[in-house]
């Protein structure tokens, strides 16, 4: 009897999980963080491994990157171009980008 109960409980749960993940796939690509971070890579290096005078983003703490972005957006951090670029990304985008770069090994 207990086993039957468990099955009754589980089936809707599985259906629901399946439906949710399908919805999530439509709403947000599983690679969205990677893809958004790749828009930074042209200047800041593949996976944030920057060279020369560009700031490396690989391995930067997510909270730090979010903070820097917020300052670029508000104009409180001096910038030549980053204030203009930061204003093109939403808080959600920045959170995803920050999470992605934080997970990359720092190379320098």
């Amino acid at each position, binding site marked *: 009897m207990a086993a039957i109960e468990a099955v009754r409980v589980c089936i809707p749960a599985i259906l629901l999980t399946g439906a949710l993940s399908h919805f999530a*796939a439509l709403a947000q690509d599983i690679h969205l963080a990677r*893809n958004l971070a790749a828009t930074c*890579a042209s200047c800041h*290096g593949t996976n944030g491994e920057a060279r020369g005078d*560009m700031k490396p983003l690989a391995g930067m703490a997510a909270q730090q990157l979010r903070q820097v972005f917020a300052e670029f957006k508000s104009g409180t951090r001096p910038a030549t171009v980053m204030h203009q670029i930061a204003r093109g990304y939403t808080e959600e985008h920045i959170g995803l980008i920050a999470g992605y770069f934080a997970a990359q090994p720092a190379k320098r």
Partner: protein
Amino acid sequence: MDPGRRHLLRTGAALATSLLASGASRSSEPSLGRVVVVGGGFGGATAARYLRLWGGNIHVTLVERNPSFASCPMSNLVLGGYKQMGDITRTYDSLSALGVHFVQGEVLSIDVPGRSVRLADGTALPYDRLILSPGIDFIYDLVPGLLPALAGGQVVHAWNAGAQTLALRQQLEAMPDGGVFAITIPKAPYRCPPGPYERACLVASYFRQTKPKSKVLVLDANPEIQSKKALFERAFAQYHAGILEYWPNAELKEVDGNLARLEFEDVKADVLNVVPPQRAGDLARKAGLVNVNQRWVGVHWLTMESTVAPGIHVLGDATFSAPQMPKSAHMANQHAKVAAAAVIQLLQGEPVNATPMVMNTCYSFITPTDAIHVASVHQYDASERTYKTVPGSGGVSAAASPLEGRYAHAWAENIWADTLG
């Protein structure tokens, strides 16, 4: 040893060899499929690289006619004598090391229904998906006399980097003091909107240092400067007055040797640099992909797939640009990542990213040390099925500066690495 076991071992060894040859990084996974990329510029090379970085076991072939990569960005510094060709030339070796099968060759034709690329040497490259990054070619018919003048070397375009860059540099070096360098700009859209104005500035800088009696004449078919207008106007007035002269609405109608015929007058130049009117590269036209204004390739922006040929993705300058989207190296590099992500997902039978973004940053030198930029951020708009610039984002430099000059060099170093490894 029994024959069955021997056969198994042989097969295993052959399989291992073929996987090594294909550079497969995850040999346990079945191959996602074969992708052929044609054109090893900023778009194509980036696409090949990111397919390998993101795609796991995917067979990627890159076809490029040149043995090495010459960068258009920074090539104006070579014209001014501030960089050498070697500084803007890179090999494709890192892509090969990443498992990209690099083929130096010329594409003869594309069998669209048969999904195969044929090279001039007869090789056939079958594909599951094809990525074309054909760049631009020129519309010679619009300027009578241009083709023979280019062929005869009286005129150079230097709008593809490489031999043309060197040819123009040599002409500038050979020009006597007191000579005239004229650059003609076609009506927009053309590759690299600020490029001609940067070139005019750097040639003017070179003249001021070495041939101060010489002139730079900018003959623009457009009614005004096409990018970073106020900044270039300031540069022309502050740094290049007395040497550089800018003429708007000065469309080149005909070329006769090194004589540029405009609507109302003829300009005799010692060095004539014609940036010709442009369209998508020949390859796109031959494949029947040019479907916008008889010049450009229309694409579905979620996947960069041609609007007329499913399975063929087109990148970079050859595309009919979304609003405010420049034909730039940076943008081609960004297109390539959208395409690479989409191609992998399409091969896996998964839905593609429904909310892609791309962005652009483009630096121009106005002196050998000082640069200016333009930047923009573009978000895909599902209702209009194109990219739109994000309101409030983007912009240009407050003023030219040596700091931005340093960033321009760093930009080049990083985008070359992101494109080629």
